[in-house]
């Protein structure tokens, strides 16, 4: 087997050599045979958020050197079964490390342990896993979601002057990151005694379309609300469309989570009052970096916080907001090893 591997490596080097000599000039140097193959598995590939995570992962690939990043999500958004199969295929493909955003906090525990058994370290990003950091997986690199929810709750309470009814549209059953945001939000909003929370435990579902329908039905049942909170991009966008449809946009205090072109536009026009934003570029970057550091024998903290902040119409032009929101955010400098 060793001879076979040597032969394969020799072949790879040989091919690499050939490639470099091609006359096109701008050929990217092919990865050396000993470079680290890191697989990055998002929850889906179509949300703006995951595109930013990919940008961060690519940035790490370019900066760290000797690293090849494969970015591959489940074909169907939010399909746990497909993500489980995908991780198992990556284990079979003998990647050096896997950076995973688990769709479910328990369904992915098995595959992560299988990777561990196959000596493939796993770094968890974005959403928690019901397993031990530093043991079942290397590190948990994510936003402090509960803190994000608390920030949103406090802001919304202040915007509503501490009185009135507030509506919560939840995201999806079993999604750990958004459940923590919802928990943090409820905790912070409960401190305002004049505010009643309407939480019928209705879920927005996976797409903006399903979120819009759920929001329209909810608003029909609760027309007298003074404030709304939604825990992610698609639920916030669906709620925004529903509020617009009923002529309530801008009249109801609205705090959302995550950012996209459409949401920032609504923030600018006053239809959304505040957005709680994470730093997905940094999450992708630090996720890959944690995996590479671990493989190269450096110590990696079991929990890495990637930061969370609140952006309002007023703070839109601040440099901090610019870094997180503008399309140029992908080129923004990243802090060293934070």
């Amino acid at each position, binding site marked *: 087997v060793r001879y076979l591997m040597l032969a394969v490596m020799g072949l790879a080097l040989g091919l690499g050599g050939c490639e470099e000599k091609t006359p096109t000039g701008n050929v990217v140097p092919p990865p050396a045979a000993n470079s680290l193959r890191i697989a990055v598995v998002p929850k889906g590939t*179509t949300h703006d958020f995951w595109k930013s995570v990919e940008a961060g992962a690519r940035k790490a690939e370019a900066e760290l050197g000797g690293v090849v990043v494969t970015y591959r999500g489940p074909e169907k958004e939010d399909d746990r079964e497909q993500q489980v199969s995908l991780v198992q295929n990556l284990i079979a493909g003998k990647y050096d490390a896997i950076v995973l955003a688990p769709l479910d906090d328990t369904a992915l525990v098995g595959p992560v342990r299988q990777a561990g058994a196959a000596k493939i370290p796993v770094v968890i990003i974005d959403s928690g896993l019901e397993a031990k950091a530093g043991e079942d997986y290397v590190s948990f690199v994510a936003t402090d979601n509960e803190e994000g929810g608390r920030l949103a709750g406090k802001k919304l309470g202040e915007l509503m002057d501490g009185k009135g009814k507030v509506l919560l549209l939840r995201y999806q059953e079993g999604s750990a990151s958004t459940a923590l945001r919802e928990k943090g939000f409820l905790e912070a909003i409960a401190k305002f005694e004049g505010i009643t929370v309407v939480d019928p435990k209705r879920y927005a579902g996976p*797409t*903006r379309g399903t979120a819009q329908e*759920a929001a*329209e039905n909810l608003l029909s*049942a609760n027309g007298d609300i003074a404030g709304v909170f939604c825990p992610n991009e698609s639920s916030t966008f669906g709620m925004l*469309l529903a509020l617009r449809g009923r002529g309530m946009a801008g009249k109801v205090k609205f705090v959302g989570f995550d950012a996209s072109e459409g949401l920032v536009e609504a923030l600018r026009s006053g239809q959304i009052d505040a957005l709680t934003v994470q730093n997905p570029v940094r999450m992708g970057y630090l996720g890959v970096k944690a995996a590479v550091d671990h493989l190269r024998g450096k110590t990696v903290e079991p929990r890495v916080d990637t930061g969370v902040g609140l952006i309002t119409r007023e703070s839109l032009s601040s440099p901090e907001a610019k870094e997180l929101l503008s399309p140029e955010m992908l080129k923004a400098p990243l802090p060293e090893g934070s």
Partner: protein
Amino acid sequence: VSAWLTRLSPLVGLCAAVVLFLVIAPDRPPGLMDLRIIALHTVIVGTAALGMTVVIVCGGIDLSVGSAAALASVVAAKVAKGGGSPGEALLAAVAAGGLCGLYNGVLITGLRLPPFIATLGTLGFFRGAAKWLSDKGPVSASPGWMEGWVQLVPAKAWMVVAPAVWVLAGLSLLTSAMLHWTVFGRRLTAIGSNEEAARRAGVPIRRTKVFVYIAGGLFAGMAGAILFARLTQGDPTAAAGLELEVIAAVVIGGASLSGGTGSVAGACAGAVLMAFLKNRCTVLGWENYIQEIVVGHIIIAAVALDRWRRMRGAA
């Protein structure tokens, strides 16, 4: 008389559901706004269900409608973003749906694939094409006047419900007339009832089937255009699983999956019933899982009741 009863049974089922919810929650009857929401939430499933009715009456099935609708919504958004007028975006979406239908039809008649398999394949193909065309993310664009079609409260008060609902009503009448009063309609019903007999009677099987799937695709494209108007973006991941809701609506509406029978009015009633249940479950503050359990059993009950009635009618 019994034929009329059979035809009306989906409406009876709908009325039963309405009465049931009035009994459960007499203090929260559906208001005007609820009716508007239910009507609007019927449009996408209902539009696609018109095409599905035609396909199912002809003895086929189309599992690719959700994917085709998503693809059409991306096409519409791309056209609108590229400076096309809303009318052009609408036409492009419908045309894209038609092309999807043509592809299905050619696979089914040309390669003689079972419709279930052919459209299972194109379900993946169209979804992939939508993601590729949209560069994997939603394409945001202004739907222009099409956005007015899906306003919950229409700009012109006399319309009461969103204009898209009236568009659906118009399309339903046209489809129903097509099924009952045109040669094409009679031919496709004949194929669905007994393909061999239809062949001997000289019905051009292949040509008719291709047109049937094109019709199904055109309606899926229309549903995609409405999806784009609702979301103000073409979303390649939208409408996943739409095909099951659409098939459920058609079946609740009294269609037989073995072909030959099916009604446009029934399919619309089926679509309304599902939107109604979603609205009521939300208003009553029931959690999602209760709604899923209830809707599943309504589908089972509707079809079982229909079977029972038919069997009694035949005896």
